[in-house]
């Protein structure tokens, strides 16, 4: 009994100490400039679903390590509830800034409101949220997915400009409901719809994974044997599609052209080998820009609501030239 009481007192004291800490840091952030070592940033990552994501994670971790700030990192394994849990725990811990890449676009209002009420600024990286209230976050750092889809569509329009026969397209979508999946499909459709010869004959989700891309392509190539182009929303699904195309006895890059988005190393290798025809870059290296935003936000400076990452596109020749110096 006495032992239990001592335990309870110890836990109580510990909790008091914890709350003491968080109030102290709360008043600190309101004051003048903080030393980098005192700044705590909570980052809720989507997961490690693709090579792109792991490059993104590494770049962010490296950038924060170099800046001297403390980074608390969590991996949501592609589940929204895990991400919400992570954000809530960052709020309880009283971090200075929360950054996260939302798994899906919707359903964030409640938890972002909690962060706002706790006075913790939120920075979105790489993916946006769909909310009427844009005061819930201070900035969105990331690529313009609609533009990426448009770039992919533009290449397709240019590639087939001399052809009058219909071009039958299979689209491998990203995770259903995810911003890149929705926007890339929209941007691509915007550009190709000007010419009715472009037909998306089938469009299914491959969940941004290689296994998904392979299995979907296997099935879709059988029900649509006359398809000549595959548009995959990321490299990994494109890599899966290459295997399915080869298994169907066709030559990827020739019989069936493949356009993807991301430009991760494995994708660039396949592009350089001629198995992919065109890749629109979606750079994961936004760690440095994120660190700058966090510094400004903590110092109380204003930041732009929408910050774009710098990106380009790659043809097969450009991929061969770029591969030796590719970081991810």
């Amino acid at each position, binding site marked *: 009994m006495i032992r239990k009481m001592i335990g309870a007192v110890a836990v109580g004291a510990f909790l008091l100490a914890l709350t003491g800490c968080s109030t102290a840091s709360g008043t600190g952030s309101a004051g003048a400039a903080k030393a980098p070592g005192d700044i705590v940033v909570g980052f809720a990552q989507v997961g490690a679903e*693709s090579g792109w994501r792991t490059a993104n994670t590494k770049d962010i971790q490296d950038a924060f390590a170099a800046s001297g700030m403390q980074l608390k990192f969590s991996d949501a394994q*592609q589940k929204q509830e895990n991400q919400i849990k992570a954000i809530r725990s960052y709020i309880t811990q009283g971090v200075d800034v929360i950054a996260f890449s939302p798994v899906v676009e919707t359903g964030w209002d409640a938890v972002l409101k909690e962060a706002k009420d706790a006075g913790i600024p939120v920075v979105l990286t790489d993916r946006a949220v769909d909310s009427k209230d844009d005061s819930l976050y201070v900035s969105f750092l990331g690529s313009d997915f609609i533009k990426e889809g448009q770039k992919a569509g533009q290449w397709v329009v240019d590639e087939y400009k001399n052809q009058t026969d219909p071009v039958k397209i299979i689209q491998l979508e990203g995770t*259903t409901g995810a911003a890149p999946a929705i926007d890339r499909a929209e941007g691509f459709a915007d550009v190709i719809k000007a010419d009715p010869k472009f037909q998306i004959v089938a469009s299914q*989700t491959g969940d941004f994974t290689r296994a998904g891309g392979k*299995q*979907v392509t296997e099935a*879709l190539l*059988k029900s649509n044997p006359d398809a000549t182009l595959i548009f995959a929303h990321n490299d*990994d699904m494109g890599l899966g599609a290459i295997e399915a195309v080869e298994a169907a006895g066709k030559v990827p890059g020739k019989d069936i052209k493949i356009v993807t988005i991301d430009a991760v190393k494995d994708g660039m290798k396949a592009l350089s080998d001629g198995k992919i025809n065109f890749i629109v870059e979606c750079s994961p290296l936004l760690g440095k820009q994120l660190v700058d935003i966090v510094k400004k936000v903590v110092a109380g400076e204003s930041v732009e609501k929408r910050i774009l990452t710098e990106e380009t596109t790659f043809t097969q020749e450009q991929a061969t030239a770029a591969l030796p110096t590719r970081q991810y």
Partner: protein
Amino acid sequence: MNASRMFSSRLFWPVVMLLVLFIINLVAFPGFFSLEVKNGHLFGSLVDIARNGAPTLIIAVGMTLVIATRGIDLSVGAVCAIAGAVACSIILGSPEPGSIGTVAVAVIVALLIALVLGLWNGFLVAVLGIQPIIATLILMTAGRGAAMLITEGQILTVNSPPFKVIGSGFVLGIPVSVVIAVVIFTAAALLTRRTALGLLIESVGINPEASRQAGVRSRGLLITVYTFSAFSAAIAGLILTSNQTAADANNTGLFIELDAILAVVIGGTSLAGGRYSLLGTLVGALVIQTLVTTVYTVGIPPIATMVFKAAVVTAVCLLQSPTTNAAFGRWRRSLGRGRPGTRTAERASVS
């Protein structure tokens, strides 16, 4: 087999559902049943279903035996991820990733680790008496974390032709993964149904204490089935990893435990233990994989996919439930009224 026995068989509705799915596919895509030989191997939708369904079937075979002992193994997906992660990191770490020796070592080490994990599950359940759902939940959560540690959070891409054979290769035109699945299925069926082993497993499922007092070594049996389940999960994990030529600690075998349990249940094995049907599990695994293919061939929009799958699974479960079956029986008897001969025959076959 007469009509009434066919109706009352637990396999009847799953088989009907499989046929219905085949017909839906055939209507949406007339070439569904066509089989050709391309590049010296079989090529066609049915081959894809068998090939992609192989990992689920292999895990479901292990799961069937576990469920027959009134247990459950939630950790199979995590074991898949660990096996893939171990194999890929060994292959990547070796100087010759393309040599058969390297791949053999990688596969053997992955399987040995899985055996240890299975023994751990069996130990928790049989020796410490922890409820199976809790005991295996530990490894389900911790295992994926362990796989992440092995891969250091990266997707490990391997370029090793011998390793690729496991998931995407062909033997005499038949996919290697299908051959592996057939071997495991047949071995499990022969070992448990041609010997008393199956009966002993079922008796443990009905009443472990009573079977122990009757002289059945239930503890050893439990450890064996959990070890076999982990072993089959590791084989499935190697197939999945080899198929995508990369170890992906987060996604390899994700939710496959649910697919496997569903396959077992669709096949008519009761979660209450004490009775199992490996043939039913085979049909269940085929139904699940055909369902996935149907979504693609029919072109069901990704947003509606989950609802479609749920509807099919609900239909199978409703049709299989004893209450529905009893209602069907009453309905058929009312049709057969006036022909007393049929009625007595039916009663006799039911009892």
